[in-house]
């Protein structure tokens, strides 16, 4: 599957922005029915997003929708209107434990069945934005096969923890680490929270490099101008790229020769390293790295 480095937030009640979604180079978008939409506009936004999902050509963009929380009066209506339009995933806010995911999973399954959609087609991105959610991250990620990713909501999480969100981000260091490990353990993707200062690209790049280092597979963007910077941080370096090529070559040779042991540059490599090399090459394809001449 194509790596998904960026997830661009677009308010669900902003047709002017939705119609331009495919042009900014994001890997995926998140049409937001929750925080970006005023209470009075919830119905209109839901209908608007449904219309776009049905009729608009988003080209090769992965399109997800953030619905309102299960604790709101809008949750059921959001699912009823959006699931039949088959977005790639639904983002469920404030998942505190596996039961929240399972409750959503059940409702989505019912709607899929009644609309002749293969069960499990619409995935769940579970949003971790409370302290209890962080502590339950692995159980959330592995609650059901429908979960495709964990996403960290930094603003609400810091509020829940009673601390300030800072540019340095130390207050989120533990939560980020915990959520990444949980996601990796469950075999799902993991997206980092947004960088709020649109004008500070240097700070954004620094944070991106740091979360790439922690193991996040992608990051949310709140402005199209952030996409390029996020992608920059995910770009493999030439040395890593060349090494990944050698690993994949060795793995293929080992497979052909029926060998169980793979050796690269005189060192043994095992399955997770091969998996990482494969992902790195998929990433490198997005940046136009030339595989020939290796």
């Amino acid at each position, binding site marked *: 599957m194509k790596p998904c480095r960026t997830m661009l937030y677009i308010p669900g009640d902003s047709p002017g922005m939705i119609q331009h979604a495919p*042009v900014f180079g994001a890997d995926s978008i998140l049409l937001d029915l929750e925080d970006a939409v005023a209470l009075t506009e919830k119905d209109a936004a839901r209908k608007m997003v449904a219309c776009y999902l049905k009729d608009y050509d988003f080209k090769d963009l992965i399109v997800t929708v953030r619905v309102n929380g299960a604790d709101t009066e809008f949750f059921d209506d959001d699912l009823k209107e959006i699931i039949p339009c088959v977005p790639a995933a639904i983002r469920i806010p404030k998942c505190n434990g596996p039961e929240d995911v399972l409750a959503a999973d059940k409702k989505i399954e019912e709607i899929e069945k009644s609309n002749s959609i293969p069960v499990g087609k619409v995935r769940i991105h579970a949003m971790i934005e409370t302290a209890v959610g962080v502590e339950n991250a692995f159980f959330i990620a592995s609650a059901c096969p429908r979960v495709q990713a964990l996403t960290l909501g930094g603003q609400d999480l810091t509020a829940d923890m009673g601390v300030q969100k800072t540019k340095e981000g130390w207050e989120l260091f533990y939560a980020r680490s915990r959520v990444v490990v949980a996601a990796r353990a469950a075999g799902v993707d993991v997206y980092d929270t947004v960088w709020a200062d*649109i004008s500070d690209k240097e700070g954004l790049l620094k944070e991106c490099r740091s979360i790439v280092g922690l193991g996040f597979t992608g990051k949310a963007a709140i402005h199209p101008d952030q996409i*390029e910077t996020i992608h920059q941080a995910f770009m493999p370096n030439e040395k890593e790229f060349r090494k990944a090529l050698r690993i994949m070559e060795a793995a293929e040779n080992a497979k052909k020769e029926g060998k169980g042991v793979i050796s690269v540059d005189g060192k043994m490599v095992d399955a997770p390293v091969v998996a990482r090399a494969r992902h790195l090459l998929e990433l490198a394809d997005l940046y136009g790295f030339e595989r020939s001449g290796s």
Partner: protein
Amino acid sequence: MDMTLNSLGRKVPLELPGVGSFAPYMSPFSMLGQPGTIQGTQMHMRRPAPARSKVVENIEKAVELSGLKDGMTISFHHHLRNGDAVIPMVLDVLQKMGFKGLTLAPSSIPDVHDCIADYIRSGLINRLYTSGVRGELGKLLSRGELNIPVVIRSHGGRARAIEEGSISIDVAFLAAPACDPLGNITGSIGPSACGSLGYAMTDARHARHVVAITDNLVKYPLNPRISIPQYLVDSIVCVDSLGDPKKIATGAARITRNPVDLKIARDSFRLMKSSGIVEPGFSFQMGVGGASLAVAKYLEDYMKEKGIRGSFGLGGVGGYMAGMLEEGLFDAVFDVQSFDSAVTKSMQEDPRHIEIDASWYANPFNAGCIVHNLDCVILAALEVDTDFNVNVLTGNDGVLRGASGGHQDTAAGAKLSIVVAPSFRGGVPSIKERVTTVTTPGETVDAIVTERGICINPRREDLLGSALKSGLSIVDITALKKEVEKLTGIPRPAEFNYDKVAAVVEYRDGTLIDTVYARKS
């Protein structure tokens, strides 16, 4: 009216009653490359008695001294932007003095001056030569309610018309942000400081009589800068104010945050870079709004990163370009018109910020205008068509709402002319089969950059090759038009009354490139 087809297939009149005869447009450079010279206007000699002050009591007195008569031509500049109060102030006096049938030939008309429509109705003005028409005036002309000939000229074309005598200015009323008692003038000092007086400089040199109108009479001699010298100025009128200082002294325009504009700007810059034009000694002009200004941000970062120092910036200069000069990214900036008065400090303090007149800027019929030295220009558009023609004058509804400005001059002169436009605005596609009005011929446009891809003029195979090599998102203009129309539908074209010409559009060489008709009522 006798009409003919020009080389773009546009019907244009051969003669405009009360104005004169015109040739149809043929190609961008068909009138250039000719040996010898053509006779232009002569300098108007004056023989005033020596005096230590030219200040007169009021505008009426200045008008009396000017010898203005019914049917003559008056001019103004538009450097005070939407803060200008001088044009209505003078027209009001002329109306009260009972003048009739004047030709109004300003360098352009600020958006706010809807009052001009009233002076046309009253008979004070019966011909209009301008760069642009907007607002209520544009609507009335497009409704065919103001029955006068209107000639639209580019800034370079106007300078040419003045110097060749097609516009013969009898009296120029020049707003003067700083003026001394003998008529030395500058725009870079004073409460109404606006920056360059480039268009006014051309008028002052060629008008039969020049009246300076100032709210800032300074001690003789005006210093440290004189834009228009005293020997061109006949009289001076002091007024309380030249206009609204908030709208004259605007701050520097900010770089847009609009994602679509930023995407267009980034791709435009990438196109520039891929063409290999951004090298030491590079010259550049940009607009002041939206995507056009935002290109400068990407350019600035790149020039700094690579240590590239350009030759000159040209314009239409705003605070951003002045900042690039200050940072040493260009050797000089040529400024015919300041977009915001944030440049006045640069003009006053930096000798490399050079004030130029309209002819120096863009007149194709002199011994060398600066637009012909340009490497790259970024231009905006109201609409474009699949032949790369550009319209900056009329809206989708066919109503006059823009200005020719320096568009056709810079597009013709620059090695690389890039037109930036969102692929649709307000649900209306920007790419048409045929633009409503051609102001800049597609022959001079190298690329059109939209948020949905870059269209490269088939004439520029070299540019296409380098862009593809750089991995830019290139799209065929007809395919893009279809893609956009899938979103927007195809708007019904505006319907015109082809018996009623609202305006003619000159190309910079004086040929007619298009005709604007009144809307069908």
